Every structure is written in C-alpha cells, then in structure tokens.
C-alpha cells in the first residue's frame, strides 16, 4: 500500500479513473475470453469512438469555461453533409473539402459564440437552438438524402498508416510512432523531475519514477504491438492519429498557455477574472467557436468512416461527449476539468460499450449500465468533495496537465500563532 502511494504521487485515489479503465479492460479481456485485446477489436474501438473523443476535447473547454454545448451533433451533421455536397457538386479535392468544413465549423461557432459571449444568452439556450437549427439545415441542404463521399475522403475516417520500409512483420510507421511516444514520455518525465529538483521542490525517489515509466511505457508498447500486428492493410488508424495530435495540442493549450489559463479563470470566477484584466467575452467566444470547429472535424471523420453523410448523423453525440467530460472529472459549475481526463472518461464509456457488445449484452442493458456508471463516477467525486478532500478525478488529472504536483495533505498552518514581533 505504501509502495503504491509513493508510486502514484502520495495518493492512490488520484488514479481512480485510470485504475477503473485498466480494471475494465482486464475484466472484459477475461470475460470475453481474450476477444477484447485483439488488434482488430482495439482498432475498431478507436475508429468507432474517435469522433466522440474529439468532441470531448472541445466540450471540456466549453464546460471548464462554465458553459455547455448541445449542438455538436447537429453541427457535425451539417458540416458533414455540406462537405459531402461540396465534393459532389463543386468537385472539391479532399483537402479543400476539409478546409471548407473547418471554415464552416468556425462560422457556425462564431454565430453561437456571438450570442453566448456578446449578447449574453446562456450557452444552454443558444446551443439548444443550434441543435434544432443545424439539424434542420442538414436535412434542408441534403434534402434528407444520403450523400456518398469519394474514397480519398474516406481515408480521413477509415484509413490506416501505410506500409513503408522493409517488411518486418509489423507496420513500420506504427512501431515508429510507438517508439517516439516512449521517448517522449521518458524525456518529459526526466525533465520535469530535473526542474522540480532545481526549484527545490520535493521529488519522489528514483525507483518510483522508474516503475511509473515502466508501467506507462509498457502500456504504450503493448498498444503499439496490437496496432502494428493487425489484419493486413490495417495499422494505427488515421482518426486515432488525428485524435492523438489534438490531445497533445489541446492538452498543451489548456495547461500551459495564457489562453488556457484564461479559460480556467473565467470558468472559476468570471468577475475575479475580469478584474484581473481577462477579457471574458473574448474567451467565451473563442471557446464556443473552437467547439464548433472540432464538431465539424468530428462530422467529417464520421462521414469518412461511414462513406456517406446522412440526415441522422450525429444524433445524441452531444450527450456522449458531455458524459465523457463529466466522468473525466469536470465540474458542472465550471473551472475544473482536463483534456486528458475527458479522454479517459470517453475511453471508459467506449470500453464499456465495446465489452458489453462482445459479451452479447443487449442495447437496453448497455444503456442502463452506462447510465449507472456515469452517475456512480460523478457521485464518487462529489462524495469525496463533500468529505473535504480534493476531487479525486480532478486531482489525478491535474497530474497530467496543470502542475508538477506535490500536494501536501494537512493544513494545520493557519492555526499557528502569529509569530511576528510587534
């Protein structure tokens, strides 16, 4: 127990959600007699959920800023159909179509951001209206028809890293990616340890770091192995690649940049932020706009995967994305949440979905179980907060993002006598 505590930065509870994810995977691996961790299934899992996870990235920023976006499914569908039509009728090449889709997303986002940030209508209302509006637009411009997209565009949603280099029995690019990830994890861990030491902050013992690195890198290498040894023609999927890049970018933005700080500040206490010189309207506008851009991207990936855009694409996505964010430790009141947390939250839902499917559990029971998991995860977090402890999920996610964590447990200090000479 003590060893575990040291391993996970003083507090085993911090890693609750990752443990839950790992436990879930192991559970299904055992009960599906090994059908969970097969290359085919893992690739499938990523392909089938990447667009929800991309939405979760945008959604967590919206929720941190203290808003909500109910329109993402409709926006995704509208952008999807518009892009499909643009390719069919205007003969846009795939890259121009993607650019067009992102621009359309930005335009929609600007519309919603304008009403939310500058007119001051709650985002719940603005995006509820948007949900109807853009669903309507989708069916209006597409005449409620299904519009297919050409093969080069499908690559975006169902493509894989190509085979290059010598034949090794593995997909070389996937292996390369895995190795880069391992190197990145090791160097960043060592660097943050060095700076912490240089600043005089406390650092855990060396064996703690090494064990942690072995565990994390082991997981990465195992995933790499799974992705690299799939059925011929498959490897690490393109949507997964897009997702990974977005996680890196947005994780960085939210944790390390000025705009990221401002989003947390506005969500935490808008008045205090404004009196510190933060332009809260601009922040709100940008957060809403960004969400719609990502919704557009998710819509295009989905269209690519399903080879056509239809009138009922994206129905219910907003709720999946919101669930992922809240399981990942965000607070309804804003100011709390992380990108990585939301991804883990989304993966918990995805693994649950996938595993129950493999077990042959019906859609009815699957929904019941997912509902209970969402409730339990948030209840667990709330319970811990009311006990005066820090939010577990929030804290554990903090480890990944905003700080190089050394959290002391007691605060007896305020009780000290004022030892000031007078």
């Amino acid at each position: 127990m003590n060893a575990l505590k040291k391993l996970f930065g003083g507090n085993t509870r911090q890693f609750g959600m990752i443990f839950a994810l790992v436990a879930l995977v192991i559970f299904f691996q055992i009960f599906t007699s090994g059908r969970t961790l097969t290359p085919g299934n893992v690739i499938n899992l990523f392909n089938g959920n990447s667009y929800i996870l991309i939405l979760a990235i945008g959604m967590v920023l919206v929720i941190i800023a203290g808003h909500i976006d109910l329109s993402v499914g409709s926006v995704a569908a509208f952008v999807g159909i518009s892009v499909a039509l643009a390719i069919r009728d205007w003969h846009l090449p795939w890259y121009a179509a993607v650019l067009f889709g992102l621009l359309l997303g930005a335009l929609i986002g600007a519309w919603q951001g304008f009403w939310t940030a500058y007119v001051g209508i709650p985002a719940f209302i603005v995006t509820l209206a948007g949900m109807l509006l853009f669903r309507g637009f989708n069916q209006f411009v597409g005449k409620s028809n299904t519009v297919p997209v050409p093969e080069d565009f499908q690559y975006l949603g169902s493509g894989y890293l190509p085979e290059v280099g010598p034949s090794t029995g593995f997909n070389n690019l996937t292996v390369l990616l895995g190795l880069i990830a391992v190197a990145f994890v090791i160097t960043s861990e060592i660097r943050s340890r060095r700076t912490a030491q240089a600043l005089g902050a406390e650092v855990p013992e060396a064996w703690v770091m090494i064990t942690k690195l072995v565990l994390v890198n082991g997981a990465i290498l195992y995933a790499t192995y799974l992705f690299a040894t799939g059925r011929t023609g498959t490897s690490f999927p393109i949507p997964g690649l897009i997702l990974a890049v977005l996680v890196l970018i947005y994780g960085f933005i939210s944790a390390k940049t000025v705009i990221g700080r401002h989003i947390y500040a506005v969500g935490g206490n808008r008045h205090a932020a404004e009196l510190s010189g933060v332009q809260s309207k601009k922040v709100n506008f940008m957060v809403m706009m960004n969400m719609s851009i990502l919704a557009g991207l998710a819509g295009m990936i989905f269209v690519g995967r399903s080879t056509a855009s239809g009138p009922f694409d994206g129905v219910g996505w907003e709720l999946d994305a919101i669930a992922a964010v809240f399981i990942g430790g965000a607070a309804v009141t804003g100011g709390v949440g992380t990108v990585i947390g939301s991804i883990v939250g989304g993966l918990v839902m995805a693994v649950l979905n996938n595993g129950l499917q493999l077990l042959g559990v019906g859609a009815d029971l699957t929904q019941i179980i997912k509902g209970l998991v969402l409730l339990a995860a948030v209840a667990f977090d709330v319970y811990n907060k009311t006990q005066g402890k820090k939010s577990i999920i929030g804290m554990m996610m903090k480890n990944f993002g905003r700080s190089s964590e050394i959290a002391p447990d007691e605060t007896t200090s305020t009780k000290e006598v004022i030892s000031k000479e007078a």
Partner: protein
Amino acid sequence: MSTPTTHPDPILLEMRSITKEFPGVKALSDVSLRVKVGEIHAICGENGAGKSTLMKVLSGVYPYGSYDGDIVYQAEVQQFRDIRASEQAGIVIIHQELALIPELSITENIFLGNEPVRRGIIDWAEARKRSVELLARVGLREDPDTPIKEIGVGKQQLVEIAKALNKSVKLLILDEPTAALNESDSQHLLDLILGLKGRGITSIMISHKLNEIEQIADEITIIRDGKSIETLNVKEDGVDEDRIIKGMVGRTLESRFPDHTPKIGEVFFEVKDWNVGHPQIQDRLVCKNSTFHVRRGEIVGFAGLMGAGRTELARSVFGHSYGRFISGQVYKDGKPITMRSVRQAIDAGLGYVTEDRKSLGLNLLDDIKTTTVSANLKKISRGIVVDTNKEFMVAEQYRKSLRTKTPSVEEGVSKLSGGNQQKVVLAKWMFTDPDLLILDEPTRGIDVGAKYEIYGIIQQLANQGKGVIVISSELPELLGLSDRIYTIFEGSITGVLNKDEASQESLMKLMTSSRKAA
C-alpha cells in the same frame, strides 16, 4: 447524567472540555465555555482559532458523537443530532453569510422551514401578521412583502434576527454580525442585541470588531489555537481592546500600526470631474464631479459610509469596470490617459484589490501560484506559453516576502485563512508592479495579527514610491494608515483632511453631510 447546580448567576450553557478533531488537525482541544443566563458573551480569537468550529459543535452542525466533551444546556447534557435539534432547544445561530433567499419576501424568509399551517395549507395571513410584529420588535420599518434582494445588508441582518425570534430563541449566536455593515447599521444592530438582552435572551457573539465587543459584551472568552485561554468579565476586569488583543495573540501589540515615516513626492495621478451613472438606473449618478489626486509615496484614504460611492468611484476609474462612464478625465504624470478596460488600466499601471475577496477577488479553485501570476501572465510567458517554473519561483518569492502561511504555493487558495488569502491577492497585484494601487477594504474579515502585517506591506509599497488608495469603513484604520483622507457622501467628495487634522469626529461629519463644513 448531570447534577443540576444551584448558582447565584444561573448558567444557561456550559461546554465542558470540548475536543474536536478533523483528519490531521485538532481544531478544538479541551475548550470550555460558560454562558450565564441573560448575558452577552463574546468569543474572541484570531481567524482559525476555532471559534466557528465551537459554534458548529454547539448548534449541532457537528452532531453529538463527532466530538468529545459535554454540552450542558439548561442544566441538562444535550446530544444534538443536527441544527433542527438545537433550534428546538432554543439555540439559533446566525451565520456570517446570511441564509436568506433573495427572491423571496421578508415574510416568506422569516417563516421559511417554519411555515404556519392551517389544514395543510400555509396560512399567509397569519404569517404576515406575525412578521409585522417581529419586524416591529427588531425595529425594521419595511413592508413585509418586500423581496429580500431589495433591502440592504443591514436590514437583512435584522430579518435574520426576526427569523430567530420567531423560533422562540433562548440563546442567540451571532457570527460576525456587523462584518458587512456600516457604522450606523452596526450601531442599530448592537442596540438591538442589548434590547434582546433586556428581554432575557442570551447572546453569544463572535466578532473581530473589538470596540463593539468592549461596548456590549458582559463576558469575553478568548480562544487561541483551539484552546480556551481565559474568560474575562468586562466590567470587573476593566477590559479594553488592548487587553483582548493580548489574550488573542498571546502577547501585547504595542502599536496597531507599524511605524512609518512617509516619503511623499509630487502629484502623479489625478482624476478630474469624474461622473459615472448607475449601471441599471437611468439618471442616477454614483460619482458626481469627483476630483482627487494622489502623490508618489502617499497613502490616501477614502472614507465614507457603505453605499456612499467609494467602491464605485474606484472601480469606474479602474478601467470603467463599474457603472456607465459619463465624463471626466484621468491624468497620469500630467498627461491625460484613457482606460476603457481593466486590461488598459493594468497596462497604465493601476491595480485594484476588491473589497469582496471571495466573489470578486479570487478564483477559489486556483492554487496560490496560479493566482499570484494571474494578473500579469505576460511577464512569465514566452509568446503564449506560460513558463510554469518562473510561475513557481515568483509565487515562492512573494510567499517568503509577505510571509504567507501555507505549506506550499501549490496549496489551493480556498484553504487559506482570510489574512493569508489577502496576502495572495496583494502578491498578485504587486506582481503587476502598479504605480497606483487601490485597496478596497484591505483588512475586512482579517484578524489583528494579519492586519498589522498587511499595514506593513501597504507602507512598504508607499515607500517604494507607489501611490496607494485605501478605502475603508473602519475609521481608526484610515486614521492610522493614511497621509491624507478624502470623504465621500452620496457620490460626491465632500472634503479632504490631512493626517494631523483628521479625527473620527471630523471625518464622520464630512461623511454624513452633503457639503463640507470646514
């Protein structure tokens, strides 16, 4: 159980060796408190000394079994399971943050959770009739149908007391009842508490305002570091403020203000003919033709009753962050400048520490280091990327120089005491390196020892050649700290007094009259 004691002065409440532990912290250890029937008993202690914890034990917020020791009330050992149980015994606590619903009327608030019912239906006629009586008893002349949000804090406090009276209170606990009130409202409230005493209601009062305690309390129990230190009888022991402070901090404070020799330079900041309209109400001015100036190295006080327009003036100057700007000009170093947003004001070298630390000054979800740099992220960023190492170092530096008491700068600001939170807010503004720092009620809700330190910081800033404006409702604070004091009444500046010509009386006169007498 207990043995009833016959006593010349009957004891209403005795708390015997109360010990309350939280994980890792002993909040109260062996605290004893005896309150006599019909007295006003004050509890004094610094922030974090355990006063509120003790009251929570008494009122059942921490139920029987979660603490050690006995509560003997009306000669019986009590085992309160929750607040309801203690209220049924006649113990009512009025918290510092008022528990009123802004949208509901006075009557509805008074009877909330205690509605008079006839055949399962609320009898509003009866409720209204009784609330008229209750309002008369607390001396509040308001229509009982007025929504709470439309009356001021002072009157809201009276409604709270009316609500307590409705519960046939025997022991009234008031936690910082006058913290948010201006002088005249405070006085009214204190008179009311004395009046209740005349009708046999015993009160326990927690307050940082020692002059008020000295004025109305019969006995004072001092708590320090979770232990009861002593109980003083105000009349017999001849207690004065210094005596109380000595008990609270465990030593004598020779002076409430650090020594300071001002080094005042030339005028560098001027506001001329400043007019600002009320944000909601058309045609109403919150600042009328205000003109004032600040010199380098000078601490300028702004005195005025609550609602006089001090905060409004300060915030409207600070980047038009309050009200509708109408006219006026700001000059800095002789040149006219415009600040239309808080950002521009910060860039122009202004800083503003708000009076309402929790709702306007801090993001309580943040830790110390992110708060410290939050108003000047540019200084620790390369491009758009925040350098978290620099952030840590900056926060550490301020933690040391301001002596903020915290295990680390990664501690959440919500865990700090009021005084230490204020130091973090000061650090945040010091880090923006302002030429003029406006401090709005800088020591509100802060204990004596920390006040002294904050005063020292303010004087240091002035010594560095910065101008400092201090807005305060506590006249002794303004008199002790300021080099010059402006008085404000109903949005107008009614006078300015130098340190040597100002007194509580002269200030009060200017603060309550529309045109200057002197």
